[in-house]
């Protein structure tokens, strides 16, 4: 009996009356929770293997299964929670760094939920989006500071390159390798239909995906996986990943056992070799160095693509963003600390960085104060869960938002946070062909299109309520927001008044 043996966290409950012994639970669970007993007839479960992904529950034709959180626990202790104790056992056993997936699950303040949106009454009447045109198109990129004219007085087109989106929502970076080909195909096709962009992440671009050119953002990270001339030209924009919200200051590391077949081909590294993206770009130690990477990418693509610089929201984010806005970058993507879909060291994920709401507000404010807000567009990411979050983000200063977790949930993710296992029963975070086949890219695309269309409709309703008929008129329009239950410092950073004021 080992010290760290503990009764399983979840119990799989089978209603024997309802069970029809179809065996679907056995074939559907890649974690091998369900199996037949030696007699080949009776079904049994191994609770210890269950990650609570609900796959068996969802496929069971007779609703005979449910998963419960086990009530077996340590003696109640407000300081030493079950999770805290189990983590110590685990580290004492292995000496390893704790790793987990899918964003920060801790009970951290969600400022979205403490912000309320305005609506018109009597004066400045609201607009009916069912009757009136409502513009949700956004253009992301740098805006020229002055109008230039030629000798004859005609206006010279000095507009830097932009990406035009029909909706202010983009799919955030998730690499092929961390998620499956079918998940990528769903995102790419949905982006095409929605008139927006998906982000291929730092794992290179699969050859089948070069055709989504105008709806693709490609990423250049410190490991430079799959980066070559053709790749740089394959997207509508290029994103330099300096950091990500789930793990600020930490690099990426896709283990060699996931570098197989097409993933190896797309990353352009041998099968079985670890894909290590170190924390820093080792050629970037300053804004001047960043400018060099920005311009080398612009030179390589003839100044035709906007360059996005993605950074994690950290303490000095306003100064950092001010530097980036002067580096020649066209767009800044801010990623808050509650976000993230990939694997991240648990301690970093849960303790490093700041919430996107505060980061976004302070960046927008600083760039305005310095008169350089027009140099860049802002994309906010890091846990935008619904259309109201999107509206609040835009009113706090974002031009558009990145979503990833919401998109994966639309594809079937049940947030079991077992992405690292490679046995994702929903066909998302896996490279196992049998599991990938469970995610139909056509259905996945449709679900994403439905989600974003529904959000867009809700956004239009909220805009109409505020008497705003163009989403661009909402950017940074903080008079449309009020805080509820926030202290004066929080209100000051957010740049909003309290409800009732």
């Amino acid at each position, binding site marked *: 009996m080992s010290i760290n043996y503990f009764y399983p966290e979840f119990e799989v409950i089978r209603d024997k009356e309802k069970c029809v012994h179809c065996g679907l639970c056995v074939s559907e669970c890649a974690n091998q929770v369900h199996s037949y007993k030696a007699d080949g007839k009776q079904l049994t479960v191994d609770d210890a293997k269950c990650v609570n992904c609900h796959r068996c529950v969802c496929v069971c034709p007779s609703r005979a299964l449910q998963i419960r959180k086990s009530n077996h626990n340590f003696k109640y202790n407000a300081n030493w929670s079950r*999770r805290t104790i*189990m*983590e110590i056992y*685990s*580290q004492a*056993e*292995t000496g*390893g*760094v*704790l*790793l*987990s997936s899918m964003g920060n699950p801790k009970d951290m303040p969600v400022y979205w939920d403490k912000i309320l949106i305005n609506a018109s009454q009597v004066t400045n009447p609201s607009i009916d989006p069912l009757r009136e045109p409502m513009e949700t198109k956004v253009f992301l990129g740098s805006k020229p500071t002055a109008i230039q004219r030629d000798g004859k007085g005609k206006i010279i087109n000095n507009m830097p390159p932009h990406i035009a989106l029909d909706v202010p929502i983009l799919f955030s970076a998730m690499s092929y390798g961390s998620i499956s080909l079918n998940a990528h195909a769903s995102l790419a096709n949905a982006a095409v239909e929605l008139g927006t962009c998906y982000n291929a992440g730092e794992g290179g671009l699969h050859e089948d995906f070069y055709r989504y050119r105008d709806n693709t953002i490609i990423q250049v990270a*410190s*490991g*430079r996986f799959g*980066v*070559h*001339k053709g790749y*740089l030209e394959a997207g509508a924009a290029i994103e330099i990943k300096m950091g990500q919200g789930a793990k600020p200051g930490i690099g990426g*590391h896709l*283990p*060699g056992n996931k570098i197989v077949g097409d993933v190896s081909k797309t990353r*352009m*590294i*041998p099968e*079985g*070799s*670890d894909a*290590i993206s*170190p924390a820093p770009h*080792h*050629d970037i130690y300053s804004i001047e160095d960043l400018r*060099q990477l920005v*311009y*080398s990418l612009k*030179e*390589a*693509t*003839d100044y035709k693509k906007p360059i996005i610089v993605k950074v994690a929201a950290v303490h000095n984010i306003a100064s950092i963003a001010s530097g980036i806005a002067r580096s020649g970058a066209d767009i800044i993507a801010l990623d808050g600390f509650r976000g993230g879909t990939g694997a991240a*060291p*648990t301690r970093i994920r849960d303790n490093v960085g700041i919430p996107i709401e505060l980061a976004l507000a302070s960046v927008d404010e600083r760039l305005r104060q310095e008169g350089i807000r027009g140099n860049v567009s802002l994309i906010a990411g890091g846990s935008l869960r619904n259309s109201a979050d999107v509206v609040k983000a835009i009113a706090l200063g974002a031009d558009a938002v990145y979503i990833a977790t919401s998109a994966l949930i639309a594809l079937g993710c049940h947030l079991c946070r077992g992405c*690292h*296992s490679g046995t994702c029963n929903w066909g998302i975070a896996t490279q196992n062909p049998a599991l990938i086949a469970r995610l139909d890219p056509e259905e996945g695309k449709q679900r994403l299109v439905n989600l974003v269309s529904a959000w867009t409709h809700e956004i239009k309703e909220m805009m109409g309520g505020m008497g705003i008929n163009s989403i661009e008129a909402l950017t940074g329009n903080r008079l449309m927001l009020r805080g509820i239950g926030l202290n004066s410092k929080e209100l000051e950073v957010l740049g909003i008044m309290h409800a009732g004021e």
Partner: protein
Amino acid sequence: MNINALATDFQELNKLIKSSVEEDLVINNCMGQRYLGCGLSAGKLKIYGVPGNALGAYLDGAAITVHGNAQDSIGDTMNEGTIYIHGSCGDTPGYAMRGGKIFIKGNAGYRAGIHMKSYQDKSPVLIIGGDAGSFLGEYQAGGRIVVLGLNSNSKCPVGYFCGTGMHGGKIYLRCKELPSSLPDQVNASLASKEDLQEIEADIELFCREFGLAKGGILDHPFYVLTPNTKNPYRQMYVHC
């Protein structure tokens, strides 16, 4: 075509280079213009003077020769082609290069060949004639880095932290003594005949370009550093 780069902005100069990609180009009076030959896939580019940072970044097949020194980040994320530097260069030459060859007659700064990779038939080569700075071949994942230490005053021609995080490829050091400390991820041994055969043709190219005798270079002990695992960080994590 000859281009006088004196007082020419880097954007203008690059436009000129790109618009005449099929020709052999000579750039005179180069004075620190950045990104020259960025992503160039064909042709020959001869540069007299000192090109600025990120020379030949994302290079995709062109041949660049610099008659002078070069600055930082030459051949960043290079895929194919060759770069010859008849002098020394700054930091991070060959950052994440996946293919092609870089030959530096003199010394290189910090982090030479960092993140160098190989893939299928692509196996990049970086040869440094003199000394290399610290962090040589950090996170190397493939390809060959050779440091010859010609005219070097030190016993070993590399700085600190050579090969940290290395998980593929080979580093050749022409010296009788290994660096005073090597990271855990690296195995060191005297180069075998087979090891040296792997770099002989490239040493020949190096010598031909820079007018040196191949014999004098190869008749000397070499150490070879190789990673002791392809997965250096496999044991570091425990899932929760």
